[in-house]
């Protein structure tokens, strides 16, 4: 059975506040999709509409051929992992995990068998009789996951499930969650505001901002080719330059103050139109003042090379952030630190260069 999740033009108003506006996407069975965005962007509301805790003001939610827009939450083949886990404090671990099965009138012996199996899957075997308050945060997280998975939902909804864990545990769980998802082949819809988490785990990322979809794509697409100013700024560090589009014969550029950034000519843009460009710091390489940029470009004809002055060097361990000014315009580049002796000194002349295809023209 293949059940693709369809979210069709869904809008949600809370009184006069519009939380979600005309959001559409589809998730194929077995995919890991992340709804990513800052708090208040509508990602949790979207997830809750899929779970059935909110009814869309407009639009439909379908699972395969089945319209579940107004289906009660307890009738939907979706399961949710809550941000605060929502484990029942008055029930044991086993009763928590087996709750969904009990609701489906699964006989007690089959239930305990499946609970045991599920606890093994989350690598916490034999803790059926423990109380919830005896578990650590990480263990609670796993139990919440087990409770949601035991009913074999078609779609697992996860609302910032790792938010309460410390950094190290969170990183481990990211990998484990991804592995589990691939192993079980269940569709995961994951909500987070942590871009790194999204990049690590997702097959596809949907970026929401103020209730609307900004961009969707694979982690590589989202990171390497942001299409809007918001996405470029929200995901990773970047150099954002605002300027105007200038076409000159068969070459084109965005004039950003003192810096002209050459780009491929755009059919959609008119001369003089405001545009922004984004260049990731790690795509820029540094040369000395003589202009022999080491370059990570594979062909010099597509490389952009600029002269500037080193303003500041911020050492961060494995990398260093180097701030360059080019006639008052500041750019940041990131360099692997192999040898601290090779770091440039502030005030020195330098050239910087990057491959033109790493210049992202932002249309929104």
């Amino acid at each position, binding site marked *: 059975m293949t059940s693709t999740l369809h979210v069709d033009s869904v809008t949600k108003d809370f009184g006069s506040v519009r939380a979600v506006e005309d959001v559409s996407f589809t998730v194929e069975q077995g995919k890991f999709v992340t709804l990513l965005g800052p708090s208040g962007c509508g990602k949790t509301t979207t997830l809750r509409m899929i779970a059935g805790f909110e009814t869309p003001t407009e639009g439909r939610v379908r699972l395969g051929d*089945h319209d579940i827009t107004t*289906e009660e939450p307890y*009738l939907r*083949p979706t399961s949710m992992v809550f941000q605060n886990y929502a484990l029942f404090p008055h029930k044991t671990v086993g009763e928590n995990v087996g709750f969904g099965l009990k609701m*489906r009138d699964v006989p007690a012996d089959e239930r305990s068998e499946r609970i045991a199996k599920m606890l093994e899957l989350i690598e916490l075997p034999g803790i059926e009789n423990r109380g919830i308050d005896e578990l650590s945060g990480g263990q609670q997280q796993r139990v919440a996951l087990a409770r949601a998975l035991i009913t074999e939902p078609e779609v697992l909804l996860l609302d910032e499930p790792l938010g309460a864990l410390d950094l190290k545990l969170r990183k481990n769980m990211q990998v484990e969650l991804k592995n589990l998802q691939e192993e079980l082949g269940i569709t995961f819809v994951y909500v987070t505001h942590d871009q790194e988490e999204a990049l690590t785990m997702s097959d596809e990322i949907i970026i929401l901002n103020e209730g609307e979809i900004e961009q969707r794509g694979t982690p590589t697409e989202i990171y390497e080719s942001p299409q809007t100013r918001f996405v470029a700024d929200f995901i990773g560090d970047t150099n954002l330059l605002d300027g105007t589009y200038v076409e000159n014969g068969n070459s084109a550029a965005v004039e950003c103050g003192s810096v002209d950034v050459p780009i491929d000519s755009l059919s959609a843009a008119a001369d003089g139109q405001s545009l922004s460009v984004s260049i990731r710091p790690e795509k820029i390489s540094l040369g000395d003042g003589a202009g022999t940029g080491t370059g990570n470009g594979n062909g010099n004809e597509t490389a952009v090379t600029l002269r500037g002055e080193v303003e500041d060097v911020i050492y961060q361990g494995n990398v260093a952030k180097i701030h360059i000014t080019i006639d008052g315009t500041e750019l940041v580049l990131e360099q692997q630190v192999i040898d601290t002796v090779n770091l440039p000194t502030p005030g020195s002349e330098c050239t910087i260069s990057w491959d033109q295809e790493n210049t992202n023209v932002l249309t929104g």
Partner: protein
Amino acid sequence: MSSQDDVAADAVRPQPTPETGTLRERVLEWADSEVFKGAISLGPILLLLTVFYAVPVALLLVYSIFVEDPFASGLTFEHFSRFVDVSAITSLQFSELSYVRLLGRSIGIAVIVTVLSLVISYPITYYLGQHAPERWKIALVMLVIIPFWTSYLIRTYAWIPILSNNGFINSALTTVGLPSLPLLNNYVGSIIGLVYVFVPFTILPLYASMEGLDSSLIEAARDLGASRWEAFREVVFPLTLPGALAGGVFVFIKTAAAYVTPSLLGGTSGRMYAQVIETQFGTAFNWNFGAALAVILVVVVLGTIWIAMRWGIDVKGSRGLGGGGL
């Protein structure tokens, strides 16, 4: 996954149509609305409150404006004018005081009791809220709450063997050669008993305020050179006054309507207004006049609450502190 499908198949839910037009749909939509569900769950209770609370109290209002049997006799204002008639020598038992003066005395006693309750409440709540060791705190606060939930009748009459002429206090006084004091069967007895019974109403809200007071404010005051007393006067007192006043309003209205304590401890000079209301129903059998006296007491109580709320005192604030009695 099959169990999921069963659940889904069992649900014979009509596909809802987005258009709302027919009466049936509108009724269904209304039946699903929050107000309706709220009304359903509160309806029976509101009905109960109306029939068994509002009607009995309203019945007193009705009695107060009829000569005798409600609706069977004429309307009158005579019961209220009898109240304000200062020259009236009232019922035989209490000839020494008019009803107006008795009400005035009750209010006066209520003011004294309220002030005393506040004075007593401040030190203990300051200690419990700011200084009590953490591990003892819950136990100490429970010790304050528990008497609140025990029989006020017993706790009131317990003062008789303490205050009477041959009671504990006077026995102790005469043993050391001091004259005995008249503490029982006068207004002193009423006041002591009332403060005792009602002081938890100021302690509990004041404790909540003290507990919520950021202790670094006191430390800041001390750091800036304030003595203990100055820190209390300048920082603690103004910040906790709203809690104290909320409790104070409760003590006031409870005292103004007190019946049990003055009956047991007050004698003649401690007699209070609620006692003459009871007399009209108990021995004098003048329900209409008694009802008028009751209506006047209700007006005093509601007026006090109204004034307190106009002054910005959060009267509701003190009600949550769960108190027994009275």
